[in-house]
C-alpha cells in the first residue's frame, strides 16, 4: 500500500485509524491486513470491486463484526470497546440498501432512531427538511419510493449531529437532482467539520468530491491518496482533444511526429492525442507551432475509473 497524499492536504488529525486489520472467514480473507487513516473533516472514499472487502471494513469500523486481528480506533477509542456508546453517539451510518420499517411514518422512523441514539427528537423535523422529505413526514415508509427511503435513511444517519458519517453506497436509487442535493448536504457537513467515509460504485460521481480515497482489492488497500496523486502514481497517459479544421488533421499529425505520443485519432471535428504525462508540455509546445490552426485544446486527465482499474487489476 502506498500513502502518497501531499502533506499540504492534511485537514486535521486522524479520527479513524485502522492498523493491521484482518477479517478471516475460515480460508477466506475478506480483509487482509488493512492500514488506514481518515482525518478530521475529511471526505474519504473507499472504492473497490464487489467482494473487495469494503463492506466488511465498514462493519468492523462500526463494531458490527469482530476483527480477526488488528485494531480500529474511532476518535481515539478502540472499536469495539467499553466506550462504544460514546463512540456510536458520534457516528451516523447509512447502510447499503437501507431497510427501514414499512409500518412507521417518516417522523416515527426518526423518532425511533433518535430515542435509540439518545438524542432529542425536537430537531427531527429540521433533519427531514434538510433531506427534502418534510412533505412526506406523515406518510408511511411503505408508500415511499426507493429514493425517498434512501433519503430517510440518510436523515436517520444525520440524527444527533454526528461527527463521523459512514455512507455505504449512499446515492443508490437517487435521481440526478437528488444526487446533487445529497452532495450539497455533504459539502455543508464538511464545512461543519464532519468526517465522512463513503463508498460508491459510481466512480465518476465521487472523483471530484472526495478529499482522498483508498482503493481496495482482494481484502487489501492497494493505494491511498488524493485522486490526482493516484493518477500521478499510476502514470496513466493523458488525452489531448485538439479542435482543428478537417484539412488540418494531417498538420497536427506532422507537428507531433517524433514526440513520445501514443494514439493519434481523427474524430468528429477534432484530433484525440494520447501521450505520457511527462510529454505533456512538449505536446503543447508542438501544437503552438501550428500558427492558429488549433481552435481549441482540452487536456483530459485519466478518470478515477482508469486509476481504479490500474490499481485493482
Amino acid at each position, binding site marked *: 500500500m502506498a500513502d502518497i497524499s501531499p502533506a499540504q492536504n492534511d485537514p486535521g488529525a486522524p479520527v479513524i485509524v485502522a492498523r493491521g486489520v484482518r477479517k478471516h472467514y475460515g480460508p477466506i480473507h475478506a480483509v487482509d491486513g488493512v492500514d488506514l487513516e481518515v482525518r478530521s473533516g475529511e471526505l474519504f472514499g473507499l472504492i473497490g470491486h464487489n467482494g473487495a472487502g469494503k463492506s466488511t471494513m465498514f462493519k468492523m469500523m462500526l*463494531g458490527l463484526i469482530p476483527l480477526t486481528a488488528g485494531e480500529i480506533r474511532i476518535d481515539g477509542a478502540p472499536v469495539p470497546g467499553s466506550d462504544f456508546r460514546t463512540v*456510536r453517539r458520534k457516528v451516523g451510518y447509512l447502510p447499503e440498501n*437501507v431497510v427501514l*420499517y414499512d409500518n412507521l411514518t417518516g417522523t416515527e422512523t426518526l423518532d*425511533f432512531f433518535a430515542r435509540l*441514539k439518545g438524542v432529542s427528537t425536537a430537531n427531527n423535523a429540521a433533519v427531514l427538511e434538510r433531506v427534502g422529505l418534510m412533505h412526506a413526514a406523515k406518510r408511511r415508509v411503505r408508500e415511499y419510493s426507493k429514493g425517498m427511503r434512501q433519503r430517510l435513511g440518510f436523515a436517520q444517519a444525520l440524527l444527533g449531529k454526528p461527527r463521523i458519517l459512514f455512507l455505504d453506497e449512499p446515492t443508490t436509487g437517487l435521481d440526478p437532482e437528488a444526487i446533487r442535493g445529497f452532495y450539497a448536504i455533504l459539502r455543508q457537513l464538511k464545512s461543519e467539520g464532519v468526517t465522512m467515509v463513503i463508498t460508491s460504485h459510481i466512480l465518476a460521481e465521487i472523483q471530484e468530491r472526495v478529499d482522498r480515497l483508498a482503493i481496495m482489492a482482494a481484502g487489501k488497500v492497494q493505494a491511498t491518496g488524493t485522486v490526482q496523486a493516484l493518477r500521478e502514481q499510476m502514470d496513466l497517459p493523458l488525452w489531448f482533444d485538439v479542435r482543428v479544421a478537417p484539412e488540418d488533421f494531417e498538420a497536427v499529425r506532422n507537428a507531433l511526429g517524433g514526440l513520445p505520443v501514443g494514439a493519434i485519432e481523427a474524430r468528429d471535428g477534432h484530433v484525440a492525442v494520447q501521450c505520457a504525462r511527462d510529454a505533456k508540455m512538449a505536446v503543447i509546445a508542438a501544437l503552438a507551432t501550428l500558427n492558429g490552426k488549433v481552435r481549441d485544446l482540452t487536456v483530459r486527465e485519466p478518470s478515477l475509473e482508469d486509476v481504479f482499474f490500474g490499481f485493482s487489476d
Partner: protein
Amino acid sequence: MEFSQIATIAGKEFWDRIRNRWVLAVALVFTVFALSIAYFGSAQQGAVGFRSIEVTIASLVSLVIYLIPLIALVLGFDAIVGERERGSLDLLLSMPITRLELLLGKYLGLAGALTFSTVAGFGLVGVVLSAQLDLGSLFHYFGFMLSSVLLGCAFLSIAVMLSVFAADRTRASGLAIATWFFFVLIFDLLVLGVLVVTAGRWGGEALPYALLFNPADVFRILNIFSMEDVRTLYGLSTVFPPALARPWLLGLVMAAWIAGPLAIATWRFRR
C-alpha cells in the same frame, strides 16, 4: 445495561402489534373460544350454559395448551432472523445499544403484546362470568390467566432463541413448527411410550421430573392440581407427586423456561 434502550425497542415491538391489530385479533380469539367453552362446553351432555369454573378451566387448559404455544412461536420466530434477513439488523446494531439490550427489548415488547392479548381475551370472559363466581373461583380463574401468560412467555422465549440460531426465516418457521409438535403433541407420547414399553419398570420414578422438561405439562399441572374435581380427568398429571406440584415451585420452573432459552439466545447472539 441501559433500560431506556430496552424500553425503546420493546415499545416499538409492542405498538407494532397494537397498530397492526395482532393484539386485538388474538384477544378476540381467546374471548370467543373461552366464552364458547364456558357456555357450550357441556352441550354433549345435553345442557348448555355455565356450569362450574373447574370444568370451564379444565376445558380451557386443553385449548390453551394447543393455542398459546403456537401463537407465541409464530409471534417470535423471526424476531432476530427477520431483522437480519430484511437487512435492518446492522442499522439497529450500529446504534448505541448492546445485543443483550436489543434481544431483551424484542422479547419484552413481544411478551407485552402476548400478555396484553391473553389478559384482555380471558379477562373479558372473567368479567362476564364474575356474576356467577365466588371469590375462590375467581382466584382459580386468575391463576389460570397468570399461568397462561407464563406459558406464552416460555414459548416466546424458545421462539426468540430459535430466531437467533436460524440462518433464515424459512428455517426459523420450520423449527418453530417442529418445536410446537414436539412439546404439544410428541413429548407426552414419548414419555408414555417409555413407560409402556418397559412395563413401568424403567422411568416410572423419573416421570414427574420428565414432565418439568415440557412447559406445556408444567402449565397443565399448575392448573389441574389446584382443582380436586378435575385432577382425576387427566392421565399424566395424576401421577405427579403433590410435593412437586406446589404452585411456587412450578412457577419457578416456568420462570426457568423463560430465562433459560433467553440466556442461550443471548450467548449465541453475542458471538
